[in-house]
């Protein structure tokens, strides 16, 4: 268990993502309308780099012949076989109870005591005031 600084909030704008290495795992961080989520970058199907997939909406449950497109920006599709996952929970759309990818907590923090700071950031930075609007994205693994 550890806290890992991914970067500034401004470095992952809404609709964007970052893929990072933390504790030997590849993990994708997603900004969905200002809220941050993290998923393991390995599809439970055949271990594809899931977090490199497309970010879309989805066709919602509907009557035959009816199309309801919703949840734009909340659904991650595997780049290989196209399986759909809910970015917010890591649960698959076709079988949310049994087929899921590991989700991690993400917080936005002004101070980053005890977290590993990326090499390209000044390590003294935690002594500066940081606004929440451009705070640190912290991944909890």
């Amino acid at each position, binding site marked *: 268990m550890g806290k890992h600084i991914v970067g500034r909030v401004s470095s992952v704008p809404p609709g964007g993502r970052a893929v990072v290495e933390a504790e030997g795992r590849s993990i994708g961080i997603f900004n969905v309308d200002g809220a941050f989520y993290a998923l393991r970058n390995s599809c439970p*199907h*055949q*271990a*594809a*780099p899931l977090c*490199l*997939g*497309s970010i879309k909406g989805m066709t919602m449950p509907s009557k035959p012949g009816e199309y309801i497109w919703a949840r734009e920006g909340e659904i991650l*599709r595997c*780049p*290989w*076989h*196209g399986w759909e996952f809910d970015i917010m929970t890591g649960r698959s759309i076709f079988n949310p109870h049994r087929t899921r990818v590991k989700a991690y907590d993400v917080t936005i923090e002004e101070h980053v005591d005890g977290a590993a700071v990326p090499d390209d950031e000044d390590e003294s930075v935690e002594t500066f005031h940081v606004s929440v609007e451009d705070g640190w994205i912290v991944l909890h693994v």
Partner: protein
Amino acid sequence: MATVARDQTSGVSVRSGIVDCDVHPAPVNVDEIRSYLPMPWRDRYSGGGRGFFGNPVHGARLDSTPPGGGPTGSDPDFLRTQLIDEFGTAYAILLPRAFCNLHPDPDFGTAIAAAFNDWLADTWLSRYNPDGVFKGSITVNIQDPAAAAREIERWAGHPHFVQVMTDSGARAPLGQRQYYPIYEACERHGLRFAVHPGTDGMGINVQPSPGYPTHYIEWHTCLSLAFQAHLVSILTEGVFERFPGLGITLTEGGVSWLPALMWRLDAEWKALRSEVPWLTKAPSAYLRDHVRLSSQPLEDPDNAKHLLQVFEMMDAEHILMFASDYPHWDFDSPTHAFPKLPEQLHRRIFSETAREWYGLPTAE
């Protein structure tokens, strides 16, 4: 990584590692193929695939686009990194996608096939192939079997073409006599004949289902229907009695349907043998000598034991060969697509059977 050893007695280099029986290289653009087409075809050719039933999600692995740009499967260095080196592939059997047999004009289809062969021979089978990892398929336009046979003759003896290939899309089942010039040429030159999905119901070809399905999911699931019809035709028409040296590779046509279809066909044969008296044994008994299936897209039952049972029913140890279908969307990973296999069966499926089938060097 595949390793290379030199056989002490024969001097032939042997690459250890798996054999991938369905890999799709692509030209960098339409003009690359055009450059191999004579006029008037050069002006007329505009590339293009099947035209409809496009995958609504994505047609190729999203991570397979070369970093330097260009179509998926067009950069040999990136393909080597992502496929050959990643999985320790000793040999990759290349099947380009020319979609040449949907055209009403047989001369146009034949010209496209020839251009793809010239392109493949110049690039993936020579310039990109210093170590011999790539083995090719000769594209033919089956709508003109005599011309297809001449195209096979043109490439006979090439060190890296190991089979002839067609799309499964056709105007008639592949066991019928109009195709025999193709099989005769394959047999004469020791080339396998591969069938790969494509162009079913497109252009002049018939659709192997009752009419056109609505959705890609239906069309793609039912690709195996054409393979079943072609295989029953090839077996019952006595193609393997007529061409005892012929071998058919059923590529990407599905796997698990085989035992049930053979039970059904063998049962029919017991009653109806007199209709096809040239068969000297039960239809299923021809498979081990004459037919191989490539594995991708491998069915994936919830209970993996069921798939292993199917493998036993279908004699997978002798007739199933691994394929990834790289870079297409339904790529099967060599390390994740199969349930855990007994070591011997794994060796057969991932290496030995294909090496025997295509005459590739085999490590002792």
